[in-house]
């Protein structure tokens, strides 16, 4: 047995000089299913894993393999013949589960061709985003689930994604995007966040991103641990009607699209519509104004749906992040008053550290501080409201840039913006995990 193994080793050694598992293509890669009967056969699998890159689909790692267990693993195209020879030689029960992984994937993706396909590096319209929420949940059933938290003024379903491995008594972080219709980079970030979080947990289901996945799997233990202990609620677009309006009518629209009684002007500013010092400062009582606070707090179906959800899950939501653009700011309460929150020092140091993390990637400079003095006083914001509900860690992000492109941030900046912001969000999530209350 061992003589054969040594010869095998030499063979593999020669081949692996040129090949490495970071090819983007899965052409002719095979997935094997084996059932090792005894310790000796388990040892053969250990040997394989030592001498070449073996991607274990089940169990997650070779160290978990036991006799009589069904084991699935993927190997590179060039190695698959040698692997098959070795399996035959060893007498181990095996079958080729997938003969050509690339072909199998192509078949899967072809069936999902849409007129506009989703891209994480482009701005996606609402229909595409809506379809994506269904897809991402279907692709990651153990990790991502989709629910509807309410309807917009124009009757559209507000989709919420819950991400996290199942567990008891898990706390959660709530992240929303797309409050203001024209801030397109915001929903783009929520989509990116969901992708990153799902990918890192279970990279085998995201083979399309294999280059990055293989590089990061196991290295990003931070994210993997986060998902074990925390759930993330992600609302990719709060103001769906407004977002659609920026695609079809007016790229600079900000508010919702609700009709205002007795006025020809439409819409309420959703981030002036919460019950936090409502309509006292930095908001307008005129329906035609961009910062119109609405006829009453939570007058908008969208804000009411969000607030209802948070109220219903108050015991589990430990942090609230709301994503906007532009200005490159990281804000925390309060905006409706110049008074400081009771844990101001703590929030300030979190913001400081998170901003540093963000800047570490591309040197993008963020300013941080309490809303009123850092940007401007403005009442009725969701961050202040969430904070007053008892969610101690409440932040507003204003993403890139500082005015050169403003709302019209080029698509080429989506990836870097999302990557750097993710660092800050991860930092905050980790901090929250270490300071649960």
């Amino acid at each position: 047995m061992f003589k054969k193994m040594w010869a095998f080793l030499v063979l593999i050694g020669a081949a692996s000089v040129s090949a490495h598992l970071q090819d983007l293509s899965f052409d002719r890669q095979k997935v094997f299913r084996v059932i090792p009967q005894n310790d000796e056969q388990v040892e053969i699998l250990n040997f394989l894993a030592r001498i070449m890159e073996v991607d274990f689909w089940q169990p997650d790692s070779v160290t978990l393999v036991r006799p009589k267990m069904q084991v699935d693993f993927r190997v590179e195209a060039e190695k698959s013949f040698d692997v098959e020879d070795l399996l035959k030689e060893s007498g181990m029960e095996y079958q080729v589960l997938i003969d050509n992984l690339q072909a199998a994937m192509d078949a899967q993706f072809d069936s999902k061709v849409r007129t506009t396909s989703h891209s994480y590096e482009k701005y996606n319209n609402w229909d595409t985003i809506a379809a994506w929420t269904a897809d991402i949940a279907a692709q990651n059933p153990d990790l991502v689930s989709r629910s509807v938290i309410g309807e917009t003024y124009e009757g559209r379903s507000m989709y919420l994604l819950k991400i996290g491995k199942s567990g008891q008594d898990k706390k959660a972080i709530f992240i929303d995007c797309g409050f203001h219709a024209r801030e397109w980079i915001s929903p783009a970030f929520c989509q990116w966040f969901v992708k990153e979080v799902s990918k890192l947990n279970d990279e085998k289901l995201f083979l399309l991103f294999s280059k990055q996945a293989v590089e990061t799997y196991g290295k990003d233990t931070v994210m993997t641990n986060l998902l074990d202990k925390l759930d993330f609620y992600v609302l990719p677009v709060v103001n769906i009607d407004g977002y659609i309006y920026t695609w079809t009518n007016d790229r600079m629209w900000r508010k919702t699209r609700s009709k205002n009684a007795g006025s020809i002007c439409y819409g309420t500013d959703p981030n002036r519509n919460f019950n936090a010092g409502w309509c006292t400062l930095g908001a307008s009582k005129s329906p035609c104004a961009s910062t119109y606070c609405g006829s009453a707090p939570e007058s908008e179906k969208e804000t009411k749906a969000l607030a209802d959800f948070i109220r219903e899950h108050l015991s589990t939501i430990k942090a609230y992040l709301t994503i906007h653009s532009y200005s490159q700011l990281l804000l925390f309460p309060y905006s409706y008053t110049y008074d400081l929150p009771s844990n101001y020092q703590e929030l300030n140091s979190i913001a400081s550290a998170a901003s540093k993390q963000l800047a570490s990637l591309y040197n993008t400079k963020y300013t941080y501080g309490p809303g009123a003095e850092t940007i401007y006083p403005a009442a009725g914001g969701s961050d202040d409201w969430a904070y007053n509900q008892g969610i101690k860690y409440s932040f507003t992000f204003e993403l890139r840039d500082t005015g050169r492109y403003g709302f019209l941030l080029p698509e080429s900046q989506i990836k870097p913006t999302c990557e750097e912001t993710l660092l800050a969000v991860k930092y905050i999530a980790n901090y929250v995990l270490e300071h649960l209350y």
Partner: protein
Amino acid sequence: DIDDVGHKYYLELELEDVLDKDRTVSCTAEVLYQLGSKTSAPDVQVTVQGELRSTEEADQEFYNRIRSLEKELVAENIPDSHGNVPPELEPIHLLAWVASGYVIWQNSSENTKFHLAQVKHVKQVKRSDEDLQFDYVVLLHDMVSQEVLPWQVTLLWHPQRGARVSQCHGPGGT
């Protein structure tokens, strides 16, 4: 604070060349906001310490290109909804920044903050003299009120003489 006059600010600035990120130039400025004056623009004095990069060649090229157009240039939505600017319109975009800068200056106080959000429309107007003329409709984003409002600005430009605003018109008036 200057009694009976207004508020004066002394600034040290670093200018970054948008087209050449590694290039910076220092400058100092004095800005005087006059007391109680809602209608006059702040006084600004700027001193540039160092040299601004020469753009003579590119300027001349652009000038010649526009002058030789058979039909007057017309364009809209710069950048487009997705943040794109076609390369040949980049100089038009940059001139729009100049034009907006003037409008913003004329409408600034200590409590305002404006940015150019988008060039909604631009039309070249052929002239009998040597200047290029561009009639712009620019959208300015007012950070305080969050309004994005159109302003009409006419910009004259010449490679040696530089840029001048000859007219500007705000939403519903001046």
